């Protein structure tokens, strides 16, 4: 059985700044990271591999340099890594992205082995739409289990999965037949740290490249052409200049008092 982990390369948003003049993201020199939620999706796939011996395939759609992201997956223990990259995939919104990803998963299913689970992050830290996972599920007709915080049970012979969904203030236990698509939250697990011998092996390993020659998708349904939404403007809301109330280092107690008074005055302390 295959477990597919969808991982996206995202800019390290804590380091992204918005150009105040052009209102666009300043991406130069910003390192790319694996979307943090996706590291948890990959980790869960690897844990299931450790327990049940499934094969883990990591896939990512992105520009050629997204290969680095997939090498990280290999270093952590993924069996295969596939980069979905082609000029015609570029500029995709969530609709077009999930179209390409689901086509790739379907190809794995028909040509390699039965896909049991697709694991996605809850959302990305750059696009933040949380739509790609569900988009994949609906295209492939998979069960859709979002916001998974814990896998309660996976029964491979009965082909059923029971998970706990982490919702605001409550947990929901749901059960579904396989194949299923899960989007995962950070509470699910603690990602492992790569071992050096595997990192070194991953540097030499092959990341397979699937372009549209491989997937043969209708160009009207992918990339910019297949994307009804586009980002027209990005800007950061203007911030009012703050006010220095006191010197907490010189007078910690007095400054704390001052702060409490201010917060109380604005009714921002729940008393």
């Amino acid at each position: 059985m295959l477990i597919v982990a969808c991982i996206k390369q995202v800019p390290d948003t804590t380091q992204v700044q918005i150009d105040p003049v052009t209102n666009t993201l300043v991406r130069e020199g910003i390192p790319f990271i694996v979307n943090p939620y996706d590291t948890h999706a990959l980790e869960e796939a690897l844990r299931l591999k450790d327990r049940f011996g499934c094969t883990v395939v990591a896939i990512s759609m992105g520009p050629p340099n997204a290969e680095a992201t997939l090498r990280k997956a290999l270093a952590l223990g993924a069996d295969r890594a596939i980069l979905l990259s082609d000029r015609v995939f570029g500029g995709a919104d969530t609709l077009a992205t999930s179209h390409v990803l689901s086509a790739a998963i379907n190809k794995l299913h028909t040509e390699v082995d039965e896909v049991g689970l697709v694991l996605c992050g809850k959302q990305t830290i750059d696009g933040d739409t949380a739509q790609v996972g569900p988009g994949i599920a609906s295209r492939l007709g998979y069960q859709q289990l979002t916001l998974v915080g814990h896998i309660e049970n996976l029964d491979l012979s009965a082909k059923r999965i029971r998970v706990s969904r982490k919702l605001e203030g409550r947990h929901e236990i749901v059960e579904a037949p396989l194949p299923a698509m899960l989007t995962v939250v950070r509470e699910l697990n603690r990602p492992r740290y790569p071992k050096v011998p595997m990192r070194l092996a991953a540097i030499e390993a092959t990341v397979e490249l699937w372009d549209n020659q491989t997937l043969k998708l209708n160009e009207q349904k992918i990339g910019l052409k297949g994307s009804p939404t586009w980002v027209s403007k990005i800007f950061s809301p203007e911030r009012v200049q703050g006010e220095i109330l006191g010197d907490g280092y010189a007078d910690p107690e007095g400054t704390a008092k001052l702060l409490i008074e201010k917060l109380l005055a604005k009714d921002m302390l729940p008393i």
Partner: protein
Amino acid sequence: MTPNPSIFTPLLIASLAVFAWGCWKRLSLIMLGAPENRFDSVGIRIGQMLKYAFGQKRVLAKPFGLNHFVIFWSFLILLVANTEFILNGMFPQSIKLVKLPFEIYVPLAFMIDIASLLALVAVCIATVRRIVSPPYPEARSLDAFFILGLIATLMLAAFGLNATELAAIMIRSNSDPVSFLSVAAQIMPVSARIAGLLPPAHLGIIHAGAWWAHAFALLTFISYLPHSKHMHILTAIPNCFFRRLEKPNTQPREEFVIGNSFGVASVDRYSWKDLLDSFSCTECGRCQNVCPASITGKPLNPRAVVHDIKVNLLENGSLLKRGERPLTPLIGEGGEGSISEESIWGCTTCGACMEACPVFIEQMPKIIRMRRHLVETEARFPEELLNLFENMEGRSNPWGIAPSERTKWCAHIETRPFEKDTTEYLFYVGCAGSFDSRSKHVSTAVALLLDKAGVSWGILGKDEKCCGDSVRRLGNEYVFDKLARENVALFAAKGVKKVITQCPHCFSTLKNDYRQYGLELEVIHHSELLRNLVQDGRLNPGTKTAEFGNMVFHDSCYLGRHNDVYDAPREVIKAATGSAPLEMERSRDNAFCCGAGGGRMWMEEHTGERININRVNEAIKQQPDTICVACPYCLTMFEDGLKDVKTEGVRVRDVAEVMAEAVLR
């Protein structure tokens, strides 16, 4: 009658065989270790061996060291007497020291007699000490008492032998006992006095008894030696010869290519010198008595680490020789022969153990190599470290703060970028100095002082990366290697030659570790630079003693023990305050760690007393108004510790802050 070669010779051969077998077994085990070159600078090495093995310089540094010195040198002298005894046992009457020319024989016999007495006294003192107040509780071992007993037996038997022989000569020559013994006492003062007490009728039986007692004690000693901790008699001397000549403040590089293994999880991955170390341990316990982890009740004990490596080697050696898997894991539950992970993670890499060890055993590097195995091969480490490792790799700082924030500390002062060919000093601010809200004050103080003194300096700003100290000491050599290569390339591209650091960890790493990457920098710790600036008259502190009150200084391990900088911070304090700082009980090379080194800064301390509390309590004994430090980690550890011991009115300041208060007001 007495020496019977037909009994003695086979016994001697048997015990020599047991001795040789024991030595050979150990030597062949040592040879299992990986190669390491310790054959350079032979002249210096011989000098070191004479000073430390024969001169016992480090042994003498502690009480009871003199006692050991006496036993050691008595043994060397008594080698002559014992060789005579053995030859005489095989070929009775043929070989005798008496047959030597009179001028040689007399002083020799005198020395032997006195050495025997001194050894006997020293052995008695050692026995009483081990019973009354042993260096550590387990030192009351059967092994130790057995050997002490054997040595005492040897000495007593030797006196018995010499005394009966003197008495026999006296009787044979019909001499007047008083005059004979008074002459004899000039040659063998002790034996002659004993001779006067012996009953003439029983001389034969006493002599026979003494001879055989001596023979058995000697042969037992010979056979037992290589199988006990007393093997160090043979190995400590070469161990001093093969000691690491430079300070053990760095770890060797690893080569990251496929097929290599990383770190040590099996004794044969250590170098032959590491294995020789394990057979050279005298089990004196000096290392554990200075180890901050041992003292505060953690499972780490550097003596036990060395001992466990030896036991593991003895247990697994024959399997390893056959290329089979070892039975006892080196990293395991912590029983004899195994070292627990908690021990391995407990080390602050303070170096106190290595500074104390009389025979130059390198405990700390062995611990780091086990950490390397855990981190690099097993990816198993305390969970607090996961974030640290990822932050270091992803954002080049321990907290994972965006590199663009590196310059926030200097937002309100005038700073400048380091310019190739124009700026003299790179001020390498360091992660703590850039991001830690308390340490930022120190960075500011340093910057203002540099400006005041008119030093040409600049910073790398957002291009500065962590030096990698913590990850290297934590065994994450892979990430260290990445950081080091990036930094070295950056420094080379920027033409950096001189660097100021305000953190002993950056200081030591840039200065010592980066040399392995071919980068020779002139690195100066801010305390040294400030001292120089005062000496050159470029900073004028005046005298303002009162404002600082009592000031006690804490030595940082990576400044002091690892780099021998003890005086500079003290001189800065003296210049700034008008008086030398107060000293804690444990200071300079004997200083006690704050608990943050070796990456412990980023880990929880679950077991025993907290190390920083122990040190804070020691500092408070001096009733200071200010505790002065020269390291951002020490600063944090002392400020945290002071909060916990609830002392009012004691503040912690970096030397730069002290100087700034004196100069900039």
